[in-house]
């Protein structure tokens, strides 16, 4: 990851990084580092420089460094960002403040506990439940391009949790299922091969599900993959409402919840 000499200069940029070392003390603190300013670096490059050259104790998550794995989410100057997609030149010469993702417990330095999110993915059954189980020998499940289009946007989620860090409802009510989990539930609900909308409804058409959402919309603003979880949630509200009226006005109809 060493930059070529043509992009290095004598310029430096400062990072103020949130540190939390539970074995050393109860309170977190900020540590200031000066790294070279390289105009094609992202904040992740700066963090890697710190860890490799200055302070090996700095702890953080990262992987693909190209915006597809969802590992490197952190707060950069108060905004939830993938640090591999946040360019240092957009902040330079101001100091860059790096903190762990909002609204999650901090395990150490910039690493947060994401168990809550992972539990919610299980709760909403974020996987395909086919209408009919077919053995491979019977061939593929067929789907038209129009059927694919209906859920494709929601399938782009990389589980980076930036949306949870942007959502003030999640910040105040950690039992809120949250934007990504609901968007992923909708991804499967709207998949023509899937048949578990009714089952997922128990999780998402509940008080802790879509009905906690007050459509702040910040989740969709920060999503790096344009999943638009806010849109997914509003569509789910419409579906849940149609389903509710159907069950109240036509209670003898045994149809399961349909995703319209």
């Amino acid at each position: 990851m060493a930059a070529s000499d043509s992009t290095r200069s004598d310029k430096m940029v400062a990072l103020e990084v949130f540190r939390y070392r539970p074995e050393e003390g109860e309170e977190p603190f900020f540590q200031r580092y000066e790294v070279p300013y390289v105009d094609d670096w992202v904040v992740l490059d700066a963090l890697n420089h710190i860890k490799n050259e200055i302070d090996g104790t700095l702890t953080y998550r990262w992987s693909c460094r190209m915006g597809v794995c969802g590992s490197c989410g952190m707060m950069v100057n108060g905004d939830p960002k993938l640090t591999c997609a946040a360019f240092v030149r957009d902040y330079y010469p101001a100091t860059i403040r790096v903190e762990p993702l909002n609204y999650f417990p901090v395990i150490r330095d910039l690493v947060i506990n994401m168990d809550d999110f992972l539990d919610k993915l299980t709760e909403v059954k974020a996987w395909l439940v086919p209408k009919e189980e077919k053995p491979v020998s019977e061939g593929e499940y067929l789907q038209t391009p129009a059927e694919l289009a209906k859920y494709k946007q929601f399938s782009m989620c990389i589980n980076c949790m930036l949306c949870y860090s942007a959502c003030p409802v999640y910040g105040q009510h950690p039992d809120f299922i949250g934007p990504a989990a609901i968007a992923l539930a909708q991804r499967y609900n709207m998949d023509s091969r899937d048949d578990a909308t009714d089952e997922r409804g128990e999780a998402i058409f509940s008080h802790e599900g879509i009905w906690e959402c007050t459509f702040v919309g910040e989740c969709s603003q920060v999503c790096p993959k344009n999943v638009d979880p806010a849109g997914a949630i509003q569509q789910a509200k419409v579906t849940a409402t149609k389903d509710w009226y159907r069950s109240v006005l036509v209670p003898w109809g045994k149809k399961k919840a349909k995703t319209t």
Partner: protein
Amino acid sequence: MTTEGTKSKEYIRPMPSNWWLKRRSYFLFMVRELTCVFVGGYALFLLVLASRLGDAVGFVALLKNPLVVVLQLIALPMVLYHTVTWLNLTPKVLVVWRGETRVSPILIAGVHYLAWLAVSVVVLWIVLM
């Protein structure tokens, strides 16, 4: 570390009660939500007007009251903000597919804006004619 079987203490950052002042988008959200107070207030005002349908003098007196006029002039921009934010969000709720593509959100919102203008003109025309 893991062999010891003890979990280190996690740090929970408290959410401040003035969280909505910390970010421009949160603040605009709160303004949008608080327009409901003006919506509810004007609805109650209409209720008072309705209660005076049998009393022409009291009805006109209420409408001519300067304080009542001023309160409505304060409510008007708030209600307009409700209208604009509401119409702008219609594409998120009204999703229309034509084959593999979604009807443009701008078109969806645009149709709603035109309907709003049309309805307003019709109401004005009915009252003033």
